[in-house]
């Protein structure tokens, strides 16, 4: 490897959306054992610096490949498609669905049984997120980059919503 390799090459994985998570975790530890700055603690300053840059790169690669949204964005970037933070999907039906889910999230606390309401909402959001991931994998594998980009924008929406659901789940747990 070098710092110029792709993250997939670094971990010896095929550049596809579905990855072998066990292999990723195992190779991550293998690489860290090789390049963690601790291995270079007694070496010269220059070597320590180099090791730190490699280890940082390995950590960044691992973080990117582990997270489905970051992984999808990275795959598109490798294919020459950049998505800027301001961009949003033009799928009106999807946006409408998002608005309704958000409204439900805001109303959870007013429900008679907030714990059950957040469970149900969480289940639904997780399901949508998983479905969209499968969709991304399919369109990307078929080489349809425009559809891939649209799918990534939806994944970003859903992952943010999922995070908010989890935060509220924690808050509600804390109340008891």
């Amino acid at each position: 490897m070098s710092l110029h390799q792709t993250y997939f090459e670094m971990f010896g994985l095929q550049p596809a959306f579905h990855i072998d998570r066990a292999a990723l975790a195992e190779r991550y530890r293998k690489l860290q054992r090789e390049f963690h700055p601790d291995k270079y603690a007694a070496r010269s300053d220059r070597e320590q610096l180099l090791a730190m840059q490699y280890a940082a790169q390995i950590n960044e690669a691992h973080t990117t490949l582990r997270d489905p949204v970051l992984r999808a964005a990275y795959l598109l970037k490798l294919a020459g498609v950049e998505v800027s933070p301001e961009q949003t999907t033009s799928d009106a039906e999807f946006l409408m669905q998002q608005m309704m889910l958000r409204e439900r999230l805001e109303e959870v606390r007013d429900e008679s049984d907030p714990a059950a309401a957040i469970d149900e909402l969480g289940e639904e959001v997780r399901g949508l997120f998983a479905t969209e991931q499968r969709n991304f994998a399919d369109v990307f594998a078929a080489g349809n980059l425009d559809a891939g980009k649209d799918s990534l924008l939806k994944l970003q929406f859903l992952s943010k919503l999922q995070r908010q659901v989890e935060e509220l789940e924690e808050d509600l747990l804390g109340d008891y």
Partner: protein
Amino acid sequence: MALLQISEPGQSPEPHQRKRAVGIDLGTTNSLVATVRSGSAEAIADSDGEVILPSAVHYGESDITVGAAARNRAGKDPYNTLLSIKRLMGRGIADVRSFGEQLPYKFAADSGGMPAIETAAGPVNPVQVSAEILKVLAQRGAEALGGDLDGAVITVPAYFDDAQRQATKDAARLAGLKVLRLLNEPTAAAVAYGLDQQEEGLIAVYDLGGGTFDISILRLSRGVFEVLSTGGDTALGGDDFDRAIASWIAEQAGLGTDLDVSTQRALLDRACAAKEALAAEESVALEYGDWRDQLDRAGMAALLDPLIDKTLRACKRALRDADLSADEIGEVVLVGGSTRTLRVRERVEDYFGRVPHADIDPDQVVAIGAALQADVLVGNKSREDLLLLDVIPLSLGIETMGGLTEKLIPRNTTIPVAKAQEFTTFKDGQTAMAIHVVQGERELVKDCRSLARFELRGIPPMVAGAAHIRVTFQVDADGLLSVTAMEKSSGVSADITVKPSYGLEDADIARMLQESYAHAEEDVAARALREAQVEAERVLESLLVALRENGAELLQENELDGLERAMEALRLAHNGGDADEIHRRIEALNTLSEPFAARRMDASIRRAMQGHSLDEFDQ
């Protein structure tokens, strides 16, 4: 002429020399140093057989005293006797004022925003005070190991932010120590018990010292130690146990509440003795004046329980922050002298539902873990069995419009880590820009800790928005931040001036080193030469090892010749007496060997991935 002997792998040209490395627990109340000798880690005692060095420094007009002798002067000379200095590390003058009466010193603002304390020896800052403690411990280590130390691992609380870590590292530098790694205290304790050998687990480290309580929840997953949450009370410890028992005696003996200092002292001594005796006895006889009575374990438990309850509430909060319940914790580790108290052990065992690890002396366990890690890092022991991946304890962010923070590196990200962020100019011809880096979880800059202000200069003048400055924030394996910047279209790297919010700049450290030499009447030039020689030896040795491993495989003949010539030049400079010349030669050799170092890294990755990458890619 063969300047370089390339030996077969495993056969070193010189007999293997054991490196001298220590682990140091730089504590609020007490500090100690440990090392690995004949295979096992042990704390190092001073010439009187004392292992614990009280973290106390007394500044006289002409001399500096450290340890028990200094602490004993606290009563008579409080302003010149500095205790609990760790609380001030990496803190600003405003923070210090908020500590209030806890610290009876005369403070003045320092140039770097750090507090300076007025003493008989002039103003001193917390970094200098800590350096005095470290010097004593380093000296002790060097004497025990028979020569100058090659390196040290120093422990810090898991919740220490960048400024506090940097201050600790600066103190070590001032004390002439090479820091191999700053290690989190709870991680060190877990390492001392060998818990890093497990595949996975959740670990609670319960650390009750003389004056502070810390609880840390760690997750271990295949070699990655992650600090999930920390909590505690900076004003709760074994000293409070003594006070609780002393008040009970005063009450029982009818002494009233308005006691003079010597009576208080006498009662506290009796209380402390009773507390320690009850670890072995069921009951202990107490007397004061005409009053006589017995205190048994149940009686003491009743006195201490309210205080122990406070620690368990902090445990509960820390567990909740980690999204865990007490029964999910697999291992509990006890740290700190106050965990010797039986009642503490009982309550902790009861709370977590399992017997805590307490076989290692709780005062020494952190230093011992640090010594084990130091031994690995310095190269005495194969590192295969110990790899600690740490995480950043608090998010790093930058100030954006309206005093808001934008998080760049979220907390609990595995370090080292680098994040690049692009900035652009907002005025035509703008050549400089300021970046304010903060640490914390809150959204407003004012609620986070200010770490440093970086000023970028030398941006090529362009129209507004045309310059794209890529700023890279890098956090190293010690959790310390550094920043580099480059303008993308021109490739010009911007100069960065760092103004740490509460810390020292390199020039400050150089000045303090000068001052400390003057104080110790040490020859500055001799010291500088020695340091340059040590670095030269390190560079040469490390390159020799590298060449032996795969020099023949990765280098062309002419490259090898060039390296050998540069190494010989460095050897000659090393034997000469000019520190500057040595540094020049190191620099030259480093530049020349950089491609080799990069190729070695690449080769290591290829090796690590053998059996995976190639066949899978050829499909």
